[in-house]
């Protein structure tokens, strides 16, 4: 059973975002890493890139498939997790600990479009 963390916001394309003040930390869910299988490459954006809710901002490549990453919220990239460049398998080890990017949120109202942990858990069992 895939792990779901309380207190995060979830998208239908299996990204999560943790919000602290105006800062959003974004990663993929445990369900996503499990479905992808062994991750061998994470294509990261650059700091200062603009991301838009619902649009792709990078990609995760596993031994099975390459999947685009979709931003759950809009904003400006303030940090990328560079550890993933050499150790993409960290995403498999702990998908919530090993975030992918941090953004400065441009519209907090967008969070209302995302799911809470309980709704996401149900979404995954569908």
């Amino acid at each position, binding site marked *: 059973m895939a792990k779901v963390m309380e207190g995060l916001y979830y998208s239908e394309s299996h990204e999560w975002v943790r919000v602290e003040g105006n800062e959003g930390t974004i990663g993929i869910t445990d369900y996503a890493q499990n479905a992808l299988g*062994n991750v*061998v490459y994470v294509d990261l954006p650059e700091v200062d890139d603009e991301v838009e809710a619902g649009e792709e901002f990078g990609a995760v490549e596993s*031994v*099975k498939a390459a*999947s685009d990453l979709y931003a759950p919220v809009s904003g400006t990239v303030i940090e990328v997790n560079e550890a993933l460049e050499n150790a993409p398998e960290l995403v498999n080890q702990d998908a919530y600990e090993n975030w992918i990017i941090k953004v400065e949120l441009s519209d907090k109202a967008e969070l209302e479009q995302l799911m809470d942990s309980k709704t996401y858990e149900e979404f995954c069992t569908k």
Partner: protein
Amino acid sequence: MNNRLYGNLIFELSRKGRKGYSLPKNRMGGYEIPSMMRRTTDAALPECDELTVVRHYTNLSLNNFGVDNGFYPLGSCTMKYNPKINEEMAALPSFLYLHPEQPTETVKGAEAVVTLLERSLCSLTGLAHFTFKPYAGAHGELTGLMTIDNYHRSHNDMGRKKVIVPDSAHGTNPASAAVCGLEVVEVKSMADGTVDVEDLKRIVSEQGTEISAMMMTNPNTLGLFEKSIPEIASLIHTCGGLMYYDGANLNPMLGTCRPGDMGFDVMHINLHKTFSTPHGGGGPGAGPVGVREGLQDFFPVVSPYHGNFSVMLRAYAYILTLGREHVKEVGSLATLNANYVKESLKDVYELPIDGLCCHEFVFDGLKDKSTGVTTMDVAKRLLDYGYHAPTIYFPLLFHESLMVEPTENESKETLDGFIAVMRRIAEEAKTTPDEVKSAPHLTPIGRVDDVLAAKHPIVTYQQLLHDKD
């Protein structure tokens, strides 16, 4: 097949000064290569005698598994048998030694083959003209989309930059659209796996004036026949777009129904799949593009030559061998074989979308998921029983996709043998799961570390030497 892996590299067999040739002395004089153009050091080539070279490549080839070795149900790839008469025709000296730059009046026979193949393909697809320039399926897709783009531009319709692609499409469709500078709009599938016409209506009503084309395969990626093509074609044509048929799944339609009659305007054919020419390992392919009357003026120049001519020659030999009557049996036999295997296994493998399939079908792993045995394990275990694995983890619609395409060539005995082994593996998953999870055991190499292979591929001898140091 080899029981043990033959793993030598030709460089490792090289011994200084050993030769497999002897060139005559130059008695003519005056034809020396100018010293400024000569190498100053020897090229780093392997030095071997002829016997060593022959044994090396013969042993390497025995590591291989192909359609000539055994059953190869690799879904989506149409690994049909390549009849040897195709090879005989392609080896005729008058074709074999043609040069692409030869004067046209000396290649009338080859020209006739191109013309006759075009006529055959037109009558099989219901389209009016074909270009043979594309070298493979994806190259055909790109050529087809460029044709459509040229058509829209020709009457100053510059705003058509969107291509509608079903969410179940082959990955090449969005890739070709992107390479052509077009934007992809995804249309959803319904629960039965076919295109959701209501979602398409929404897209067309919102973005109709920007639609360049709709790309579809029929049957679709799940091997299901798309019944709503006339309605879809009418929606797209009404908004000014064109219908593109991806010929990836043409096999079950061969001789039964034609894309041109369904309302498609442009299509490509993978000659290397549907028309029995060798493929695998990346080539050689041929992706001729066909169009409705009037669109032939918009073909782009994607190559100065007629693609891979020897592939076209083999495809034409295949068509002539079958003839007008027997070509009709290809599609129905491919469909019968796939349905026979599907029905014989669906009580132990999960069939997410039940019903009649065409030439292929997709299981979503084993029905009993409690054993922890995955599609990857089943595929690996099949190798132990001497079968090529089916396509796995594609399409992405399911987590444990296992896609089987038996093709029309296989006898009932072969299919029964495969069914028995698939059932046996399902049984083993319950009784001896660890044996399945650690398969293959009987192949020259066991389970490969695909994570390491993806993260640190060694593809050249130099790299291997470097790694050894």
